[in-house]
């Protein structure tokens, strides 16, 4: 198949040589930038660690941060799929509540055993996936903006959670279920840590799986193609409607998974829970470098975004920053992060 390239004209050769030089210079520059970035990060972490008298990077605190970000990271993982297709999912915070009260409701009606946990989780994740289907159908069938359909779901799911519970939390007494939110997995103490919290493990599994799907599977490729150019994807024979519906189902189902961790930790299904989580998850995605315009982004970026936000909160707590001020700082950091990313693209992007 592979033929030798056609005889190149002298000017083409010169051009290619020049292009190669530019390319190697660009590679060196980007390696240099990455090295600089890592060095800067190490220095910054060192300073912050010193400022907190070594509390910040203590193994116990690091595990603590990971546990704290687990719910948001899982929501953000689902959100990443949606945002890469140039969509948005505003309903995930409310779905946390709906899925949580439903799981608590199922558990309260069953014998407190493992079977009840399985049933409850199926119900919780299932209702999330169902809500995702309802989010996605009007988008793919009638071309409604996802902002609208998921905003509507945000209201409906929140209202349903209140209706279902009459406004009161439902207590969860099932030990197995509560272990999902609070349990540890470990073999003795390592670095003074009793074990890895189960939510952290669940989060890592979700992030790895999401990364795998986005980078290694047909579905993931279609997600990027649709976000990059929906019409080109359609003309290439991609089942655009199916894939777009799929991302909303994934996002809804992962809201159910996140809700399982939260409800297990709270030992109850709380209709007020998850308020504002949709925006936190979107923040993690955009800080992680995923474009709201679609077509570009990564699961690793999203994880780093969620981690940065979590670390920032943690740091501010360690430094005794007042909680109202924390919100101001977080907002400013999100703005700065995305602005920096934009400027970086503008000045360093090839062409």
């Amino acid at each position, binding site marked *: 198949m592979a033929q030798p390239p056609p005889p190149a004209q002298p000017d083409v050769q010169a051009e290619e040589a020049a*292009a190669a030089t530019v390319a190697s210079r660009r590679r060196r520059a980007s390696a240099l930038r990455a090295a600089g970035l890592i060095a800067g990060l190490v220095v910054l972490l060192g300073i912050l660690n010193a400022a907190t008298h070594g509390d910040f990077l203590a193994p116990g605190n690091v595990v603590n941060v990971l546990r704290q970000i687990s719910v948001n990271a899982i929501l953000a993982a689902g959100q990443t799929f949606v945002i890469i297709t140039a969509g948005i999912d505003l309903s995930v915070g409310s779905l946390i509540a709906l899925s949580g009260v439903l799981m608590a409701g199922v558990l309260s009606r069953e014998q407190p055993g493992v079977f009840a946990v399985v049933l409850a989780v199926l119900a919780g994740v299932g209702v999330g996936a169902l809500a995702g289907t309802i989010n996605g159908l009007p988008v793919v069938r009638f071309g409604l903006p996802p902002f609208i359909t998921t905003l509507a779901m945000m209201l409906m799911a929140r209202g349903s959670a209140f209706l279902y519970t009459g406004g009161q939390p439902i207590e969860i007494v099932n030990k197995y279920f509560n272990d999902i939110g609070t349990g540890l997995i470990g073999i003795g103490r390592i670095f003074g840590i009793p074990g890895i919290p189960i939510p952290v493990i669940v989060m890592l599994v979700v992030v790895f799986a999401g990364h795998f799907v986005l980078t290694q599977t047909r579905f993931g490729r279609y997600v990027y193609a649709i976000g990059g150019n929906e019409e080109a994807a359609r003309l290439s024979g991609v089942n655009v409607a199916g894939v777009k519906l799929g991302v909303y189902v994934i996002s809804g189902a992962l809201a159910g998974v996140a809700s399982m961790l939260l409800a297990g930790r709270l030992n109850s299904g709380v209709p007020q829970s998850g308020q504002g989580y949709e925006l936190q998850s979107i923040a993690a995605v955009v800080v992680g470098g995923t474009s709201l315009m679609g077509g570009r982004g990564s699961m690793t970026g999203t994880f780093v975004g969620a981690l940065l936000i979590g670390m920032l909160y943690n740091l501010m707590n360690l430094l005794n920053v007042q909680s109202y001020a924390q919100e101001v700082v977080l907002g400013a950091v999100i703005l700065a992060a995305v602005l920096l990313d934009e400027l970086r693209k503008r000045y360093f992007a090839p062409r």
Partner: protein
Amino acid sequence: MPITDVAAAAPPYLALRGVSKSYPGVRALADVDFDIRSGEVHALVGENGAGKSTLVNVIAGAVRADTGSIEIAGRAVHIASPKQSQALGLAVIHQEFVLVPELSAAENVLLGHEPMRRGVIDWFALRQEAAGLFARLGVDVPTEQKVKSLSVAQQQLVEIAKALSVDARVILMDEPSAALTGSDVDRLFAIIRALTAQGVGIAYISHRLEEVFAIADRITVMRDGKLVKTAPVADFRRDEVIRLMVGRPLDAHYPALPPDPPHTAPLLAVRNLTSPGRIEDVSFEVYPGEIYGIAGLVGSGRTSLLRAICGADRYSSGSLMLRGEPLHPRSPHDAIAAGLALVTEDRKLQGLVLGLSIRENVTLPHLDDFSRFGVIERERERTAVAALAAELSIRARSIEQAVRSLSGGNQQKVQLAKWLLERAAVICFDEPTRGIDVGAKAEIYELMVTLAKAGTAIVMVSSELPEVLGMAMRVGVMRGRRLIKEFSRGEASAEAIIRLATGTVAA
């Protein structure tokens, strides 16, 4: 004729002298002189790519000329922006209207210079002013209605009134009749006459020679960025205009076409294909190894025909037969599975995902075959695309390079590679060489011939007549959504195609 004498004596309102403009690899305008006098209709004709649009853009301030000067009423001026152009009394009405659909006709007419009173819009004055402008045109347009609910002809009137509202002395109309029906064209002519009677100069840019001869006072013919001839309409014969437009001998860089395949069993047969408002009753056949060209003006239904065949748009009646079997593509997916491929005219909007790599774009239609249980077999994908990229000599750092950063010619090869990965049986090319340089053009032509020799059927839509004549074995001509004429090999000539496509003669 005393009036003509006076007009000729005064300097023309707008005059371009020795204007040139080059783009990388293309001389879009070469030393062009062009002027428009007050009260005249000056028609500008030429094939696609002759430089008309560039000339219009220079006058409109959208493009800056490299050299040459512009004079307004004998005074040298610089036009650096659309705003300056407007301030000098120049207005352009583009083929695609630039209106805000959700605003009323009156609001659109006065958009940006609304009459104000005490800091708020004076709605009464706004309506009065807009109505006054429409009255000046001698037409009645519902000023209160949203533009989106107006007919195309009415929207055009809004554009014209908008030009008058800024006191335009010269209006350039780019293909003003393209979207109009017969009676609307007559009305447009009445309005143009009303405007010229008021001293407004009109530049009338059109493919339709009939109209040009009906309305113009003078005609300028352009070809390959050069001015070929400017003269009063009485000095032209219609045949002469066509000859001047086409002018050149066919470019020599077309490869030798293989002989016609036997016309026994068509690979693709299109029967009475109809899609309301797009194509009507189109029938033709393509044989394996044949390159079938489709010529026609923009808007004649050429692109719609290809899109209907390839499943991009639904058709309402008619049928498709592939290798003698009926085919009903309900989506591009169906068409691709059957072996039909569409190489779109607009690579950036429809053909490619610019942010993805060459590899990812090429395999996008074929991922089913490059994955197992939904997981892509990256190595196999890479090997196949690398081989194809070498075969098509796609010039890039690697197949991992984003297609955004490739040249037009290489992007076109990537688009083609998508359909060669699993040899499509029929490839529909829409403007196969638009916006790519001469060298890449030759390579694309060679590829088309190679494919034809291998038995692929090719349907090629092109606005470039030399391309149609140089590359197609048979040529179908479309006009008004219909395929009105089919030329066998060697029968077609540029003059004959232009006559048919522009409606200068009946089919």
